[in-house]
């Protein structure tokens, strides 16, 4: 459960596992980022669909 180690103005996570673990807060941090990403992608998909159906109704 290694957290990030500070080294001269940056952080070093050491390994992917420790990056994903987020010092034990992985579920909270990635749960936040994943839902945000999913919602943004969903909004863009819905917008593309809405445009297509609007164009379809004109023709």
């Amino acid at each position: 459960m290694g957290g990030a180690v500070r080294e001269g103005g940056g952080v070093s996570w050491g390994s992917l596992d420790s990056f994903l673990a987020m010092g034990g807060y992985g579920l909270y941090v990635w749960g936040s980022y994943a839902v945000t990403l999913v919602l943004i992608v969903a909004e863009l998909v819905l917008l593309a669909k809405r445009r297509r159906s609007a164009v379809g109704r004109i023709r």
Partner: protein
Amino acid sequence: MSINWFKYSSPQTFFPLAGKLALVFGALAIAACAVGLYIGFFVAPTDAQQGESYRIIFIHVPAAWMSMFLYVVMALWAGIGLGFNTRLSGMMASAIAPTGALFTFIALWTGSLWGKPTWGTWWVWDARLTSELILLFLYFGFIALQASIDDPRRADKAGALLALVGVINVPIIYFSVKWWNTLHQGASVSLTKSPSMATTMLTAMLIMTFGFWFYGIAAVLLRARCIMLERERGSEWAAQYAKAAA
């Protein structure tokens, strides 16, 4: 040099411009979020008190700011539409509502995931959290009210009244941490005090704010284009666009 801004107040001239702007702001959003996330995860240090859980604020704070900012812009467009009876204003207000609701939900969701490890609870009914939840219901109310009225011009008017009355909630959210004794902490950034966090943390948060802002503009413009096509489907320009898009 003078630009005739009124030219862009009609849907048929604004439509292609909105398409170009959406692309530009979409690209800017991707660039800003890439830089902001890089600084947020690879430059900003671990927080001494919160450990790594604080990295949620890189989306939480920008989303919360956008949720309030978009509401004010929505109310502004709605008010302009109500006062001047301009076609495009109502369309812009309608285009903003779902993206505003999205950012409000993200602010609440990420706040909850931050609150659990930090406060020990997913949710409290304190002034900041409750007023932000009311903001989400205001967005939903605006969308539902507009959807329930068939005539778009009447839907715009009814929505505008709701948006304008609801705008009182925005200063309540913003100042809630000052006016009431809340579990939620005070402002992270203010104009009168120097920020209470490390410069790299603040930098990441501000760049992410620009990223969300650009994304918000792009999404709203894309939705405004949909609304223009839906409402003006009988017009010549819409027919031409549909033909070209086929």
